[in-house]
């Protein structure tokens, strides 16, 4: 038992924090927001220079052969900058392809950054053999994806964005750093993955961890930036950070954030170690970290006063990202109900 980063993990954390702080600037993110929601140059250097786009993919599948702990470290750093990157869909799709028997050439292109994938799930999508019909809503970064991993609860396919019968409709989305698209499938032929159960489980576990870790990084950034502001801003002849009402709210943010940090790395470790706590841990991490982020982002606006309500200030980037993370891959109440069912040994 050693629940702290190894030296190697600490080094990765330092590297990725530096990378995103330097490159995922507010100006670049805002440029991406005004376009299609992706900073392509940043994604390219993430995949090629940093070489962490296959961080939790086995080496024999072309990845770095590390685990979800290292993936969480990456997502936490990206989340701290609200980076406009297709990370969520990329991770979920590449996990599915890697463990589900998917196309290794496509996987290689994803890791190299030559191809961008999105992940689209609908439990009751109509599938006749490998011919898919229906609509899938709210596909993160669906509008810019070159291909999709499409799943139901028991089957998974790889679908090219230009497949006949597929219409991709980008949606104007509150969080412009991760815009959604609607997929309309009219007799689309999918390329079936041979082990859908493994694909879906790996994709969802990785997705929960990525979102929880992004939320952790975002929440910490909200706290750090608000602490900085509170030491500079003077009212009544004092820095506002010296007022107890203000200090206590910041302290409460930290109490929640430290729990979220435990949650994220507990979940990542539990999956990496195949612990029997893993199922509970991912539901705990996703719901707790998302709620923590939302609370911290809301507090960030309140504690900045009027400036926090402006478009110019970055607070709204965090606030909108936090809201989106709360609902992506299941709302908090759904995750908590999964845990309640485990505790009570039933399914209500």
């Amino acid at each position: 038992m050693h629940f702290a980063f190894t030296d190697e993990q600490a080094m990765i954390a330092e590297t990725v924090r530096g990378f995103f702080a330097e490159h995922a600037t507010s100006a670049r993110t805002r440029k991406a927001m005004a376009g299609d929601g992706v900073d392509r140059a940043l994604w390219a250097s993430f995949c090629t220079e940093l070489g962490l786009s296959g961080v939790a993919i086995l080496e024999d599948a072309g990845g770095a052969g590390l685990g979800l702990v290292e993936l969480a470290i990456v997502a936490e750093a990206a989340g701290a900058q609200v980076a406009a990157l297709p990370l969520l869909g990329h991770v979920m799709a590449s996990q599915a392809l890697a463990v589900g028997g998917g196309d290794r050439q496509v996987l290689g292109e994803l890791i190299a950054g030559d191809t961008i994938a999105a992940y689209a799930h609908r439990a009751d999508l109509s599938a006749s053999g490998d011919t898919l019909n229906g609509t899938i809503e709210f596909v993160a970064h669906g509008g810019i994806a070159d291909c999709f991993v499409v799943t139901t609860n028991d089957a998974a396919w790889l679908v090219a964005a230009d497949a006949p019968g597929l219409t991709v409709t980008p949606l104007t989305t509150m969080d412009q750093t991760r815009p959604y698209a609607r997929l309309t499938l009219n007799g689309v032929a999918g390329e079936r993955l041979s082990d859908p159960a493994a694909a879906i489980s790996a994709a969802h576990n990785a997705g929960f961890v990525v979102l929880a870790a992004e939320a952790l990084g975002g929440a910490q950034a909200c706290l750090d930036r608000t602490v900085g502001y509170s030491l500079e801003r003077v009212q009544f002849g004092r820095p506002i950070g010296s007022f107890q009402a203000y200090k206590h709210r910041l302290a409460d943010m930290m109490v929640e954030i430290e729990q979220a940090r435990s949650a994220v790395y507990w979940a990542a470790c539990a999956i990496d170690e195949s612990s029997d706590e893993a199922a509970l841990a991912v539901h705990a991490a996703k719901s707790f970290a998302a709620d923590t982020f939302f609370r911290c982002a809301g507090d960030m606006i309140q504690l900045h006063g009027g400036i926090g309500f402006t478009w110019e200030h970055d607070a709204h980037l965090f606030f909108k990202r936090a809201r989106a993370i709360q609902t992506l891959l299941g709302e908090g109440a759904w995750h908590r109900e999964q845990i309640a069912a485990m505790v009570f040994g039933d399914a209500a």
Partner: protein
Amino acid sequence: MKLGFTPAEEDFRKEAADWLAGQMAGEFADIKGITKLTERPERRKEWEQQLAAHGWSCIGWPKEWGGRDASLAEQVIFAEEYARAGVPGRINHIGVELAGPTILTFGTDEQKAKFLPGIAAGTTIWCQGFSEPNAGSDLASVRTKARLDGDEWVVDGQKIWTSLAHVSDWIFVVTRSEEGSKGPKGLTFVMMDLAQPGIEVRGIKQINGDAEFNETFFDGARTAADNIIGAPGGGWKVAMGLLAFERGVSTLGQQMGFRNELDEIVAAAKANGAARDPLIRQRIAKAEIGLRLMRYGAMRMLSNTDHSRPDGAALTYKIQWASWRRALGELAMDVLGQTGEVTDGPAYEWGILPNLFLYSRADTIYGGTNQIQRNLIAERALGLPREPRGDL
């Protein structure tokens, strides 16, 4: 980063679990499952001595002082198994977890030889004299006086909220030894035998009807001149060092007690149908999440061996568990409904869940209120300006 334990550690877990289960099924079956700190003190003292006789009393201490030099992982495991076996809390927890480590860290060799064997053997029970009627959150404003009279310290004043003083043998007292001194300066950390005419202990009846806390009065109480830890006037540093021990391994044993309480609530909810209420289910899930995060938070704290700088995250632990447990008490009563508001028989005595509801109101007060904790987090972890001090 690794959560699992090694096979050797799992062997240690089995050894500890087997021994504890054997005791709770055998010689000490009569104290199994007691949750109140004040219940059956004489048997609880015998239990302290039984632990010591089998080398389980202070496993993290050095071997030369009666410990096992147990690793962090082993201490974690023992604390978990201790609570899992339904063993009641340590009546000498203040001796084992606070006085002992303080003497080990700050005491002289003579003091170690004088005091540690009694703690390790479970024959000297300790309590803590910190708070006073006018020095609660503002601990540094203590007024209890100590003056050196020949080869003895003479202590006059009053302490309050002295847990377990009525069953203890010794007390450590933060005193003001320099007349006219203010705040953290001029304080001395004094150890005293409670069995003397100059000390009187009076119980304070609490909201649950129990009397675990006391007022302790000092009127010309005496102790030998060398029964102080640290230098005269240097007591604040020792007292603060002692408080840091409160965030140690014992927190994991405490959490297993919380686990038992949550399990009781889950069982009650299943029995009375509250388990079908979606709102109750959400709250149970939140409680479960909170308890797990407490465990892994403690694991992080214990895994952090970089003591060169303060561990900011560790400062969040007290408010976290205290707030969690107070909410758990409210959840318990909401699961029980009005059934929880009545008790069998004429005595004002409560079962585990109603007692949790009442007792947990103290959690967010003692050991530093939630408000003081927020000040500490804001000032020490976040670097915000300190609260201004008045001069009344």
